[in-house]
């Protein structure tokens, strides 16, 4: 089963990290990612830009309205996600624990089984 692990945390705290702190966290996460990638179990991974860069299209009384900002004003924001192949929920929880332990931001990791995953074509430029 392919799981998406959605990472929620307080964005203003994460954007207050010093460059060194940010790099330290990303370094630790990279080690975990590499382990799963080498096992051939890691799918697309994304770190999202701040919610201030977000735009929301919302259907209001049958019409699509375009709103600035994220879908909902919440204490914790969706900051990124992983997709990872796991035999069962237990393994997926284990993965979420690993990345949670590596990240001092606190926050929540929502584990959601993936229904459909389209392949990422080579024409899509990878963000660095």
């Amino acid at each position, binding site marked *: 089963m392919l799981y998406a692990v959605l990472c929620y945390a307080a964005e203003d705290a994460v954007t207050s990290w010093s460059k060194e702190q940010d790099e330290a966290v990303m370094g630790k996460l990279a080690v975990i990612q590499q382990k799963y990638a080498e096992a051939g179990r890691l799918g697309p991974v994304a770190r999202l830009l701040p919610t201030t860069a977000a735009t929301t299209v919302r259907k209001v009384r049958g019409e699509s309205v375009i709103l600035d900002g994220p879908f909902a004003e919440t204490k914790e924001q969706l900051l990124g996600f992983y997709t990872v192949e796991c035999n069962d929920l237990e393994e997926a929880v284990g993965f979420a624990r690993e990345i949670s332990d590596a990240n001092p*931001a606190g926050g929540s990791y929502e584990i959601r089984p993936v229904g459909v995953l389209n392949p990422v074509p080579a024409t899509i430029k990878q963000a660095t």
Partner: protein
Amino acid sequence: MTDIAWIDPLLAAARPQAVAALLRYFRDLDMAEEAFQDACLRALTNWPKNGPPRDPTAWLIFVGRNAAIDAVRKRSKQQPLPDEEHLSDLSDAEAAIAERLDGADYRDDILRLLFICCHTDLPATQQIALALRIVSGLSVRQIARAFLVGESAMEQRITRAKAKVAAAAVPFEAPGPVERAERLGSVAAMVYLVFNEGYSASGGDASIRVPLCDEAIRLARLLLRLFPAEPEIMGLTALLLLQHARSQARFEADGSVILLEDQDRSKWSAKMIAEGLALVDKAIRHRQPGAYQVQAAIAALHARATRAEDTDWKQIELLYGALEAMQPSPVITLNRAVAVSKADGPEAALAMIEPLGDKLSGYFHYFGVRGSLLLQLGRNDEARDAFCKAISLANSPAEAAHIRLHLDRLSGEAAPGRQSAS
């Protein structure tokens, strides 16, 4: 399990909102700051043990407010409140405060806190220092370092600014829409000042002052979260991000300036550019152009050009034209002339800047631009005069050094045998 080092960013992130709310309670800046300081100290002993609370900001406001009330009561020899061990368990009260924080109240709180720092009686440098101290919570030492002055001098400057602000009546009633828009305008200008203080640094100072740019971006993002549909705030945030994206490419190791067209663009921050471009796109959709948006759009055109020669100078010229119409200024005309020189050649550009000579007679960049236009036209003697004038007006050794390169090249052409040894 929570390391002290990771509590700092939590406190920094909570600070504007927490100090702003405490200011509304106590209507006194010093008292609000002290209360927040007190709450931070308690957080540093409590959070490592119990883990940070779910809503750090609400916790800090709640604990800070109680600590301050406690202090007042102690002074009047009354019963003290229970200590923070008990306070921090009051999750109900925390939730109630958190609820209130989500309202428009707290938006006006933070805007008020920022607005206080923009008092019109305060010179720009004091506005910046005050904002960094009160809103960002940088220490006096950090601010003094950024301004390259002594700590006691900065302490005095901030104390004086605070006294001036305290003497002026701070408006605590909720602002009306017009007033809110005015406050937002002043605050945006102040955030831009903070950024420029960091950005205009050069050479060895640059690394010391970079934190000012980071801080300004943090403040701009904060404003954008409070006013998510304001295109000018999107423009401001985008402008800061797109300019700061180039910071790793702007200086040589020896501190001399690298011009935009000579920068190694692979050193530009792709992440900041992506965020800046996204914000420019969002802003344009609103079709309410403003000065920050136009400047951000200009920066975006530079950011989009993978090589300097790919720059869309024609479009940049049009944007400077739009900016000129919004806020006529000889400096903007000068910038437009640079775009004209790239798009249509030096002759047209020189004709454009001739009439600016009077107004910009003390402006370094005017003579720098004039010199290089004359140089392109082969009018070397006049170019040399302009460059000499520019050097005499340079604001930093790095600026002067850059012009000297042109002069060296000129004398090199005049007398090839006598090239400088460097």
